[in-house]
């Protein structure tokens, strides 16, 4: 089996509302150009393409179809799409590279969350018979999870605010971040509740954006990148869709994925935690006490749905590319209350 590495990454700035159309083309074209420039690749070199996006985010059936215009997909390409965060598209591409039939794959994700009313759109991810008809919104559902953990003494509103403050401060070094600043904890705790005990700063912002990752296998990766981020473990799992039957203060799927991927000793972790308490929960559950968490600011500083998980992988890989870390972890999530989770562990070669 060939070893596979992340050799290229680009993401668009996360913004509250882009004027670009919802098909992703205008967001993706400059990102493709960027990774071609960085790696020296052209579209003819890409052996497999895979993307992640959502029809309901765009409000149209087959919304991913016109995104292939951004590729210039003629002559025809070998391509696939997941109706998931593009981190899972990366998984599908990684499998293709493992097969040894192609040596370079390009993965992209895009989402225009601003097009619809995101909190309501996400209610369609729930049990369609007994939950969606009540239209519980995504922020309220996260609020139920946050309170459960508070009641168990797992975190507090102050600890959650500290996560938000650290996120915004760290995001000052991230040119693609949407929310940056240096708020004090007291300032944050003075804000009103959005969904008690969650305040606005506890929730990832609504963001439009896209991300692109280039994967390469074996020696091809070494040619394309001075220090490839070798994927040493890539695993994903899902928990039950019965929200009320799950222990919402545990994330067994993330724990199982991290264990299978071999997460010990990571120095940096980019966690896909759309709510402050979820970052704490993941840190606790994955045992990441020693790791630097979300130096990019995480998705609390910008959360382009369906691209954000993929962007975690690209951001974590950058630490290997630049030599600021030797072993990193990226995490992606999907579904209400961290239902589905993917863990990607990467390392440098030396």
């Amino acid at each position, binding site marked *: *089996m060939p070893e596979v590495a992340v050799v290229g990454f680009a993401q668009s700035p996360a913004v509250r509302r882009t004027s670009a159309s919802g098909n992703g083309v205008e967001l993706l074209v400059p990102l493709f150009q960027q990774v071609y420039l960085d790696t020296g690749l052209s579209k003819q070199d890409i052996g497999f*393409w895979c993307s992640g996006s*959502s*029809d*309901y985010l765009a409000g*149209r*059936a*087959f919304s*991913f*179809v*016109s995104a*292939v*215009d951004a590729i210039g*997909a*003629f*002559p*025809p*390409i*070998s*391509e*696939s*799409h*997941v*109706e*998931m965060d593009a981190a*899972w598209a990366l*998984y*599908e591409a990684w*499998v*293709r590279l*493992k*097969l*040894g*039939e192609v040596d370079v794959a390009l993965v992209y994700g895009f989402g225009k969350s601003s097009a619809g009313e995101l909190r309501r*759109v*996400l209610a*369609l*991810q*729930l*049990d*369609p*018979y007994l939950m*969606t008809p009540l239209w519980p919104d995504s922020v309220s559902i996260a609020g139920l999870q946050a309170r459960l953990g508070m009641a168990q003494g797992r975190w507090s509103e102050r600890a959650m605010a500290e996560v938000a403050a650290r996120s915004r401060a760290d995001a000052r070094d991230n040119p693609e971040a949407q929310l940056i600043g240096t708020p004090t904890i007291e300032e944050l705790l003075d804000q009103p509740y959005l969904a008690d005990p969650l305040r606005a700063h506890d929730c990832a912002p609504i963001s439009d954006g896209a991300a692109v990752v280039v994967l390469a296998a074996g020696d091809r990766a070494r040619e394309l990148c001075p220090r490839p981020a070798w994927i040493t473990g890539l*695993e*994903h*799992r*899902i*928990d*039950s*869709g*019965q929200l009320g039957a799950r222990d919402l203060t545990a994330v*067994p*799927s993330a724990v*199982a994925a991290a264990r299978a991927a071999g997460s010990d000793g990571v120095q940096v972790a980019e966690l896909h935690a759309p709510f402050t308490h979820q970052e704490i929960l993941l840190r606790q559950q994955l045992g990441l006490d020693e790791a630097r968490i979300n130096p990019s600011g995480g998705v609390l500083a910008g959360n382009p749905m369906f691209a954000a998980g993929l962007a975690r992988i690209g951001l974590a890989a950058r630490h290997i590319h630049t030599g600021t870390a030797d072993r990193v972890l990226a995490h992606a999530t*999907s*579904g*209400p209350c961290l*239902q*589905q989770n993917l863990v990607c562990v990467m390392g440098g070669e030396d």
Partner: protein
Amino acid sequence: MAQLAAVLGTGQTHHAAKRLDVSMAGLCREAVDRALIDAGVELADIDAIVLGKAPDLFEGVMMPELHLADALGATGKPLLRVHTAGSVGGSTAVVAASLVQAGIHRRVLAVAFEKQSESNAMWALSVPTPFVMPVHAGAGGYFAPHVRAYIRRAGAPEHIGALVAVKDRRNGARNPHAHLRQPDITLESVQASPMLWDPIRYDETCPSSDGAAAIVLGDETAARAAPGNVAWVHATAMRTEPTSFAGRDQVNPRAGQEAAAALWRQAGITDPLRQVDVAEIYVPFSWFEPMWLENLGFAEAGQGWKLTEAGETELAGRLPVNPSGGVLSTNPIGASGLLRFAEAARQVQGRAGAHQVEGARTAVGHAYGGGSQFFALWVVGADRPGD
């Protein structure tokens, strides 16, 4: 490929316009349970699940695999959700096979479903997009001009579409799972049916079905442990091109040609018409049979209709096409591709019952989607590759 993969078992639901007796979960499990029994395994033996279905707007559920995790036996396991438009059922099988071929999993369950009765596909496919001229009229309206162009280019006689419809519906009557079962359909009755999207008649179009399909794939060790014949995966291919571009050939799309060429190369097939024993081809409108026969390389461009006219695609013909009745008899959109792939496997396993093609050793499963722009294919065989 690194490892061999084989179909251990397949399952499908009873298909109907409205399966009012089951939920989405129940629909999926009907197919899954049958596939597990056919493969001689239990859900606990499955390492990963791949779910395919067409647009979420059909059921009004965003990423329904999230809520279906328990029903799919996926809780605690890896679950991937593929969506490549109408080709998705085929892509689902290809992705599931790749998980085995890459040596990542021993047994993978591929499931695809569509519960079209939850909404209305014509509505979901024709939600008026602002700024666009609202002439669009569902899939039939989209493909009818391509059919007209084919007829013109190939000089095909007008009755070819009706011939295909008669054959597929009669085949469907032999298939206990088929949605439409019309043993008495005739050329005259098809030609007398209403013209919906001229030149496509009512009886030349696929139904709208509720249904699901499932396939259990396994590696060599799993294949040896299977109770019955397996269908070895000899080749898979997926190709994509844009929906429209200047000079695009929508009648004989290059993505389909290249997918087929890659497939035959991988399977070691040099003369598809001679070497393939049976083909399950995605034909939602009858004229697509001759069009895809050409696109896949079973016939030269412009000649596909001659195979159909000569009866060569009938059950006893040189290349039986859609012995199951095909999409024209059963169309749960997201599952339709997986049904083609599963029926191809059943043929080489010798489990196709009343629509079995005698002595089938090599079969092709085909699916396409979008504006004839996404293609997924596989070749399965009774013989282990290399033997």
